[in-house]
């Protein structure tokens, strides 16, 4: 018998043993380990009965496996969900679909039920820039699959709800400090208290934290970019005339040490008084990444300290909930958000800064979105015993967005052109939804609902969901779910235009529909999950690159000046996606919860079809998974945690339109993280974390630098030598040391 077979037999015996020993608490442990989720149906349910596939990631998991951001949590501990990091905004995908550089607008991100996606780009952040003080997170509920039925737009791949701690779990004062030598630091302070206000029971929790990434300095490979077609001189990538020309990266330029940083101050406060709950969030996210790419179309200079991107947000959310009678509950939610955006690119290339007497252009792109609304909700328990419960809601929102891009001379600050990419819109949105939950018996549950969304820029969209949950035997749950979701075009996609970007026409919302079936089997403290799905996407919006014939036609109509650029784009509904596959997961505990472990594996067959044909999706891995194990020795002994995640090889973002040789594929990636955590002896309330992280791959699936495509004709004219793609570097090894001090916590907090 091979070792693999032996392990499987041992596992089967472990699962099958009918432990009749009175001391065996594994069955009870299993019940205590099953998460209670609210995101899928807006009512508290165990994960196995929720009308969607859900995963819960807890604050304890963060400590065991040194998870310090949402994307890490999803990669190491999620099921069916994966992220990819181009060194700035991470891409988040699920079930084989990842829309690269989508600004996170295919996942709906919530914090305590408050929507974080903003309407200018639809953006939401999942890396440190999410601006959610991490120690305050109680748990994260991850719902995979279309989720517009209760939440409206953006929930195409799923919904991620970050739930913060209540005061009972955050009492006292909490200080935290973390340091990654040569890479980053993070520091924070928070507190929580229970009290009485105006005779009502009340509580407050808050935290403020700061994060700073300052390394590593990446060595970029050399790219011979040749001469500028505009002035027949070697291309410039610096304001400094003494810097090399006609070349980007490599030893002549040295490592990028000034253009790779992140600064995130963030704060979150939650106040509950009687039937009211107030959430306040504010954060700023400033960053620079060590290369230009297709998204930053200005192609900014190399290692330029003044290149940056900045986002700031402030949000409030006031909820009120009241039980009017044993069968009627009503609630209201008043919310408001402000989001500011700024990007500055310094560009010394003549082709991008073709103004007389100007050697360097400073391009500033600014935008904001402000929105606020009121959501009213009511539920009715028809038979007074939760057998049939109806939920009705209406969400009215008003949004204002503004965006523009301006170029000035670096030498004297004078404006070089009139503003472009101008967006200035006001929108009114209405969402109305209803959901019925019917549980005629303990072993069958049916959930059906629909939401109708109406906006200024799109026709009314209906998003239905029907889910049936069957519990035919002990510990088993079968689910069948059909759901639809949508994403309206962002205001940037709808309205932005400039000399190389045509205004969009008749842009329709993206839509997805999905059918899935899953089986979950709990055997004492062990839980197995297996699900299959099929999804269909249509009207996928992308920046379409016009063909030469289309350019000529547009020029003939006077819509563009083809002398201004060699490439023109326009946001269009360009593609459909079809995919099917499976998600599998396993987790459990032994020894009264001292030993915890889990693993997941997802594989899919996803194909995108557009005018040029059918092909796999760029950046999205066809298969990925994770595994973890941790043992808590107890007392002052440390907890040992080991976690890893894996992604199969995947095509780079420019694989299908860059004409590169060889075909650019990112290698398979395996990331392994070991963590030691525990109490510091002799100092009550002081805990530590030590962690080391290793990544097997040295590069990821994003083409970096000016060599975004290999165009033979253009390269011949420019004497450029860009043939193969240079992929984004990955920081392969880092260590972390952290301390946390909790005091004044009373009995529950330490």
């Amino acid at each position, binding site marked *: 018998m091979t070792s693999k077979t032996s392990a499987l037999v041992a596992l089967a015996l472990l699962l099958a043993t009918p432990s009749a020993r009175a001391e065996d*608490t594994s069955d009870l442990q299993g019940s205590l380990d099953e998460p209670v989720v609210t995101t899928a149906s807006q009512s508290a349910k165990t994960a196995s009965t929720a009308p969607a596939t859900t995963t819960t990631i807890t604050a304890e998991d963060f400590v065991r496996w040194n998870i310090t951001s949402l994307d890490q949590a999803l990669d190491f501990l999620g099921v069916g969900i994966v992220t990819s990091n181009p060194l700035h905004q991470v891409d988040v995908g699920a079930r084989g679909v990842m829309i690269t550089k989508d600004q996170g607008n295919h996942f709906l991100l919530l914090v305590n039920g408050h929507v974080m996606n903003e309407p200018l780009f639809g953006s939401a952040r999942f890396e440190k820039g999410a601006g959610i003080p991490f120690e305050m997170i109680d748990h994260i509920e991850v719902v995979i699959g279309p989720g517009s039925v209760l939440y409206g737009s953006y929930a195409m791949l799923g919904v991620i709800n970050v739930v913060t701690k209540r005061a009972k779990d955050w009492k006292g004062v909490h200080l935290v400090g973390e340091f990654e030598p040569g890479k980053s630091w993070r520091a924070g302070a928070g507190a929580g*208290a229970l009290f009485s206000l105006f005779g009502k029971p009340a509580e407050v929790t808050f935290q403020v934290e700061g994060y700073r990434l300052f390394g590593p300095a990446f060595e970029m490979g050399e790219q011979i970019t040749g001469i500028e077609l505009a002035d027949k001189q070697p291309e410039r990538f610096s304001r400094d005339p003494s810097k090399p020309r006609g070349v980007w990266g490599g030893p002549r330029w040295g490592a990028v040490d000034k253009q790779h940083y992140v600064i995130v101050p963030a704060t979150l406060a939650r106040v509950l008084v009687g039937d009211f709950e107030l959430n306040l969030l504010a954060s700023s996210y400033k960053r620079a990444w060590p290369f230009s790419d297709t998204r930053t179309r200005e192609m900014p200079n190399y290692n330029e300290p003044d290149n940056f991107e900045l986002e700031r947000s402030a949000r409030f959310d006031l909820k009120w909930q009241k039980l009017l009678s044993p069968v009627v509950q009503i609630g209201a939610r008043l919310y408001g958000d402000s989001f500011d955006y700024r990007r500055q690119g310094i560009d010394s290339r003549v082709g991008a800064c073709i103004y007389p007497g100007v050697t360097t252009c400073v391009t500033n792109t600014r935008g904001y979105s402000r929105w606020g609304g009121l959501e009213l909700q009511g539920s009715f328990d028809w038979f007074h015993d939760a057998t049939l419960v109806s939920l009705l809601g209406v969400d009215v929102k008003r949004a204002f967005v503004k965006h523009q891009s301006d170029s000035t001379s670096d030498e004297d600050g004078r404006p070089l052109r009139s503003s472009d990419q101008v967006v200035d819109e006001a929108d009114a949105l209405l969402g109305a939804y209803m959901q019925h939950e019917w549980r005629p018996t*303990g072993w069958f549950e049916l959930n059906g609902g629909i939401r109708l969304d109406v906006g200024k820029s799109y026709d009314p969209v209906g998003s239905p969901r029907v889910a049936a949950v069957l519990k035919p035997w002990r510990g088993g749950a079968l689910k069948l779910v059909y759901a639809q979701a949508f994403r309206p075009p962002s205001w940037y996609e709808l309205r932005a235009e400039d000399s190389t970007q045509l205004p969009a026409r008749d842009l329709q919302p993206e839509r997805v529909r999905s059918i899935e079936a899953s089986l979950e089997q709990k055997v004492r403290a062990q839980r197995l999950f297996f699900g299959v799905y099929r999804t269909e996407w249509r009207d996928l919006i992308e920046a379409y690159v016009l063909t030469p014939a289309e350019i000529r036609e547009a020029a003939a109509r006077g819509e563009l000046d083809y002398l201004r650029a060699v490439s023109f784009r326009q946001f269009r509904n360009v593609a459909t996606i079809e995919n099917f596959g499976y998600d599998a997961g396993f987790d459990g505990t032994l020894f009264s919860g001292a030993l915890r472990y889990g693993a997941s594996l997802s594989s899919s067959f996803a194909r995108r079809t557009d005018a040029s044909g059918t092909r796999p999706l760029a950046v999205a891995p066809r298969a990925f998974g994770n595994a973890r194990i941790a043992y808590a020795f107890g007392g002052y002994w440390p907890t040992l945690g080991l976690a890893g995640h894996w992604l199969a090889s995947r095509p780079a973002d420019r694989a299908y339109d860059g004409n590169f040789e060889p075909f650019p594929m990112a290698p398979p990636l395996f990331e392994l993280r070991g963590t030691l955590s525990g109490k510091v002896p002799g100092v009550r309330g002081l805990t530590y974390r030590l962690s080391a992280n290793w990544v097997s791959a040295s590069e990821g699936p994003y083409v970096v630098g000016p060599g975004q495509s290999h165009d033979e004709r253009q390269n011949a004219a420019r004497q450029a030598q860009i043939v193969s793609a240079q992929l984004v570097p990955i920081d392969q090894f880092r260590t972390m040391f952290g301390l946390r001090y909790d005091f004044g916590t009373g009995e529950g907090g330490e």
Partner: protein
Amino acid sequence: MLARRSFLLGVPSAILVGLARRTARADDVAVPPAVQAQLIGKVAAYDKEFANRAGARAQVLVVVRSGDDASTRTGAAMMKELGALSTIGGLPHDETQLTFTNAKDLATAIKKKGAAIVVLTPGHGGEIDAIRTALDGVNVLSVSTVAEWVPRGVVLGFDLVSGKPKLLVHLGQAKKQNVVFKAEVLKLMRVYE
């Protein structure tokens, strides 16, 4: 000037002192009744005295407060969920709903009914101290649907921590009510003395 400064310092101080009076948030049922019922059914088996107390058939009293909507709602749900369990602590069982009048009458009803488990629904926050005192020496497993009542003297309760159910136990009161949990299950509980 000094008086103004005193006033400026005094007002926030008074507010803070006022705020600092620690209390519990009102009667949150954090863990869904279906999960609470399931946990009651399992935890009872780890009470060494449960079988002796219950006899051949376990009697469960679900206590509701008249006129309290949350109590009525939770009581109805608990009656349904407990009734759906095949066994509680390995025994067949019956559920009875009881409207609370006072702590003394509750203790009397428990004895008269021979209840092995009494479940307190929301709305009894003001009576918990009296109930704890009245149940001293009464052979019953008292269960709270509200987590905050366990530190105040209800033997067993449920909280939601990191999105997962957590068992809470008041060991001092357990001893007074002849509830003896096995050591193994205590490892899974947050213990209050």
